[in-house]
């Protein structure tokens, strides 16, 4: 399955790109699974996700927890805790 990943703020800077399309290998069911797999793809991903539980995720523009099922997600976002307002 192909999914669009988008990154923001220091997650984007650490990974070095704002977005990418990835082909997910089988066995990746949740957001936490996806993060584990991304961390095997290079040290930029290891750096971005180095502190478990800090980076937030959204599926199709909605906040989700790490145990959220990816299902048929079109777009998954990773970003730091928000600092708007």
């Amino acid at each position, binding site marked *: 399955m192909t999914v669009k990943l988008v990154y*923001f703020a220091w997650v984007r800077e650490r990974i070095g790109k704002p977005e990418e399309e990835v082909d997910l290998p089988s066995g990746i069911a949740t957001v936490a699974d996806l993060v584990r797999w991304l961390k095997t793809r290079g040290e930029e991903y290891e750096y971005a996700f180095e502190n478990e539980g800090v980076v937030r995720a*959204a599926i199709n523009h909605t*906040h989700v927890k790490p145990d959220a099922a990816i299902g048929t997600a079109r777009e998954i976002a990773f*970003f*730091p*805790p*928000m*600092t*708007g*307002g």
Partner: protein
Amino acid sequence: MTPTIHVQAEDFDVAAEIAALSRGRRDIGAVTTFTGLCRDEGGRLAALELEHYAGMAEAELARVAGEAAARWPLQGATVIHRFGKIRPGENIVLVVTASAHRRAAFEAAEFLMDYLKTRAPFWKREHLLDGSTGTWVEAKDTDDAAAERWSGTPSA
């Protein structure tokens, strides 16, 4: 009541937004506005740069405003959040709420600010007066605590 949501680079006009909510109405007794501005942090800051997640920002602000409308009897609600480079003294965010009574207007405005701080996908980075790009602003525990206050039943 359909909340008005704008995510934009341009500044906003508080009086125009109040007028848009209340014009021609005779049933509104209370209008509260909150304007968040960029501070210079004691002269250290040249600007804040606001990055946002286009699409999700609008969606999340609409969800937060919808939740306020479900909790309080509002006759109008507007949320405007700017992005891009914003200098000290300039506006960042505007919340306007209208209700028959003041308690609902006040509480809903405060709720909107507390909630959007922790849920709307915006990130601030500092640009310093010495020309360097500073760090990303860190999220505050006090903001999480402020949002947490609203997890019970509304008091009005």
